[in-house]
């Protein structure tokens, strides 16, 4: 049981820290907007990162030479009729060593939304994994982090499958293929399973999407990170010097999202950037370098910044990007800043507690009928009892 009274001092300290951070962020935002307005051209910025960049930091590198950093793209039109958007999301039941039966489940849900006045089509796919080779790693430990990686691959494979299906059904180009989260592989890429199985499968799904002439897009709402702020820091007059002038801040709180919330008007999109990280280099070698851009899908008093990630081969189609922006703005408008099609894909993918209970019941019935008796651990039973209080 939580004793709120005991946390009184910590809550006060948290409040004070939040107020101080907010004040500091306001100053930093003002400075960063000035640096953005005065930023040199893209080749100079890339050269700056090459010469003065900290190898441990991430930088947003502008990818198009003839587009200034301050360029903003506005789209006011509705998506053209027949435009098709495919969206997927995934969820899972984690393996639980206290459960009566050891397994894990992956479920992906998807929607094919066509702008033709008719109801979109919905689908989902579940897979049950129970073999020891699927449940344990090489050290014999129950998998944990690997499940997220496998789910990421399952989502992109399903996205490729539904995109091919939509294409076969006559969807026009651009055929947008959305997933909730980043497209740049969000894991270390260092484990054996990633290198041997998962990353190759992930890149194959990208190639399948490319084959279908689809435009894969990772939609990252409330993005963290500050690669653009890091780039702007390098353009400061005092950059590279040991001490900063008192009149100039050295942003250590400000994120790209906060900066973009002040820079982009509702409906506006930033230019395309790329990160030169080891993982993006791996993507590049596979032919699927990832670019990103920021989009404000909120309103005047409520900016909602999303990071859009897409392979370079898709981002270079200006006509595709234009329709992507129209679609996202339309989709987000009805759900106050979140694309409808992704919200529905999430709903279709979701495994509820009720679903999980029904599956566990069914599995146990089957096992009992086959003469196999299983039961949850005493600890799990006790927790279930306490959880009901």
């Amino acid at each position: 049981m939580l004793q709120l009274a005991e946390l009184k001092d910590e809550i006060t300290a948290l409040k004070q820290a939040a107020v101080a951070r907010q004040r500091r962020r306001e100053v930093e935002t003002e400075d960063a907007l000035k640096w953005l307005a005065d930023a040199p051209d893209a080749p100079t910025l890339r050269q700056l990162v090459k010469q003065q960049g900290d190898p441990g930091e991430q930088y947003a590198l502008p990818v198009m030479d003839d587009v200034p950093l301050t360029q903003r793209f506005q789209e006011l039109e509705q998506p053209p009729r027949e435009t098709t958007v495919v969206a997927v999301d995934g969820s899972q039941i984690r393996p639980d060593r206290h459960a009566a039966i050891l397994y894990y489940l992956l479920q992906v849900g998807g929607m094919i939304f066509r702008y033709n006045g008719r109801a979109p089509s919905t689908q989902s796919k579940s897979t049950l994994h129970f073999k020891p080779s699927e449940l344990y790693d090489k050290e014999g430990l129950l998998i944990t982090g690997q499940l997220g990686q496998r789910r990421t691959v399952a989502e992109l494979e399903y996205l490729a499958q539904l995109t091919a299906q939509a294409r076969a059904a006559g969807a026009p180009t651009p055929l947008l293929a959305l997933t909730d989260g980043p497209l740049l592989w969000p894991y270390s890429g260092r484990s054996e399973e990633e290198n041997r199985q998962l990353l190759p499968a992930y890149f194959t799904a990208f190639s399948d999407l490319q084959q279908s002439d689809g435009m894969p897009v990772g939609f990252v709402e409330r993005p963290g990170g500050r690669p653009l702020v890091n780039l702007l820091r390098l353009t400061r007059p005092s950059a590279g010097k040991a001490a900063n002038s008192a009149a100039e801040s050295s942003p250590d709180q400000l994120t790209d999202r906060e900066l973009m919330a002040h820079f982009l008007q509702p409906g506006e999109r930033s230019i395309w950037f790329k990160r030169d990280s080891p993982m993006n280099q791996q993507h590049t070698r596979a032919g699927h370098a990832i670019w990103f851009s920021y989009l404000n899908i909120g309103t005047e008093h409520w900016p909602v910044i999303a990071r859009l990630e897409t392979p370079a081969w898709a981002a270079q189609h200006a006509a595709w990007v234009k329709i992507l922006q129209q679609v996202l703005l339309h989709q987000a408008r009805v759900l106050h800043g979140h694309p409808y099609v992704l919200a529905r894909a999430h709903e279709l993918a979701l495994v509820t507690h009720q679903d999980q209970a029904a599956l566990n019941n069914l599995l146990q019935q089957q096992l009992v009928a086959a003469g196999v008796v299983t039961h949850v651990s005493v600890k799990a039973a006790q927790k279930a009892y306490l959880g009901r209080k």
Partner: protein
Amino acid sequence: MNRENRAIRIGNVLRADIRGFVVASRIPEPEVPTFGTFVRAPIQQGQSQLIGLVYNISLQDDPFLRHLAVTVEEDNPAHQEIIADQRERAIPIEISVVAIGYRDSHGYRYGLPPQPPMILKNITVCRTEEVKEITARPEWMRLLLENREVPADELIAHTIQRSAKLHAGEEQAYLLAAGRYLARQLVREPLRLETLLQRMAGGE
């Protein structure tokens, strides 16, 4: 197989007592049972089947719908696909069922079942042939007549009208038998009887 003859599962038992139960369901609109639908639920480890009638269907509060309700406009062309999707979307509903009897190895029994269905048991709509069998004897109304917590008279009148059609060729005799049964059961409630008979005849 047509809709009448296939087993339609409508959801799982959410809460139950001996007099009835509530089913939680997420099924698309065309599959939602109507008022007065006969349903069955397994009881006693599947040895018996509780028989009940749907007497209430309530749409549950869905945060997703609540979100959309303030932004989507029915006559806005930009919202047509979303409205169409929501109308086909499996909506969360609660279906309330009142028990009218149960079936065991000896056949149908019209009275309270020995046990309510267990939580998360799957509920199925009765097939046409089953409904015909259940309603063959007027005793299926007995528990309803005694139940003051459900719209019993509306349910009885509605069900008699529908089940009479299942007894093709004997419709008049069926209605007459039902009327006589009600007259015997409601001998002390003439006003209630009159209203019920009027409803049966399609009046009011």
